[in-house]
């Protein structure tokens, strides 16, 4: 039986970013494509967020495990660089999940106007251009005084 593309995508929906376990690799824009050939061979195409992202190896392993758990062994994982990953690839669903988790989602219109994911205030301040992972910077809310991560535009 040949498995359909949408079935594979459903399986891969369980693969989350290891650093931000609420957002799937599809919602993050890391999962670029799923190809199923006529004879059932599957190719999963992914793209790294940052060149040195240490999560890529884990993500590959998680894809591997998720497919094998469903009895799928005939596949390969390909990494492509072009076109380069961008936070524009993040889905609305992904952005909502980030916010719920306490991380401010990327704001491409103005990176100085960031909403606090805790209290919703826009009276916030950049503390550090680099945060806990390569993809985030550190902010502070001047109203509720909580520090928070901001997923920076890339």
């Amino acid at each position, binding site marked *: 039986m040949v498995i359909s593309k949408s079935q594979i995508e459903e399986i891969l929906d369980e693969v989350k970013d290891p650093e931000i376990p609420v957002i799937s690799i599809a919602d993050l824009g890391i999962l670029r494509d799923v190809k199923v050939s006529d004879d059932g061979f599957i190719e999963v195409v992914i793209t*790294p967020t*940052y*060149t040195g992202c240490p999560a890529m190896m884990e993500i590959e392993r998680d894809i591997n495990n998720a497919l094998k758990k469903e009895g799928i062994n005939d596949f390969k994982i390909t990494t492509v660089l*072009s076109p380069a990953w961008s936070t524009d690839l993040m889905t609305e669903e992904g952005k909502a999940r980030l916010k719920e988790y306490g991380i401010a989602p990327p704001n491409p219109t103005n990176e100085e106007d960031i909403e606090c994911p805790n209290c919703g205030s826009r009276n916030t301040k950049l503390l550090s*251009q*680099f*945060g806990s992972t390569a993809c985030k910077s550190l902010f502070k809310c001047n109203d509720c005084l909580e520090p928070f991560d901001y997923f920076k535009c890339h």
Partner: protein
Amino acid sequence: MQDQNKFNYIIQQADNCLILGQRLAELCGHGPVLEQDIATTNISLDLIGQARLFYQYAAELQEEGKTEDDLAYLRDAWDFKNVLLVEQPNGDFGKTIFRQFLYDTFSCYFYEELMKSSDERLASIAAKSHKETLYHMKWSGDWVIRLGDGTEESHNRIQQSVNELWSYKDEIISVNAVDQEAEKAGYGVSLELIKEKRNEKIKAVLEEATLTTPEGDYAHKGGKEGTHSEHLGFILADLQFLQRAYPGNEW
């Protein structure tokens, strides 16, 4: 190997990324404050990530069944073609910052040009890396301004680093035979083009930072031909120890 020059061209930039990445990694746990400790190591991570992409490609071109690890861990000092700038010691934070700024103002414009390379693989690595270096340049440039236009102490100290590093500024945009052939073949970039943009950026930031531009344009050279300062030997001793002592060992 089909294209020795392309291999050499890629190695030059790969080595710049790896050696500066290793220098910044030395600061892990030793940054001046937590946020900047995280910043330097994050930049290190990006640089090592870029180095890997270049080494992977170079290893394929080599057609000897070698990998990125062979290129990083098993070549000797004279095989490394990084510029002398990136092997300079971290010094104080001002020196780390100014070294980074001199490198970022190169890499940013270098990748911007390399994105138009006739070699698709190089163009895609450049596009990916360019986005990262833009952010690095913003960070290092902001810090040059903050330290230069800061207290008397921070101003004097970064001015001293500017003076010290000035003669290491231009090797990275000096054209050697490898660059020449690469540009002619269409996969390499024009360093002349980069030079202009870079000098403008450096000038603007130094001015805003109230720092004095040193006189003279003498440039220390040698790194691109494999003649290094003694610093590189110590860096490689750290970087390569495990693979040299325990060949083939895996994490």
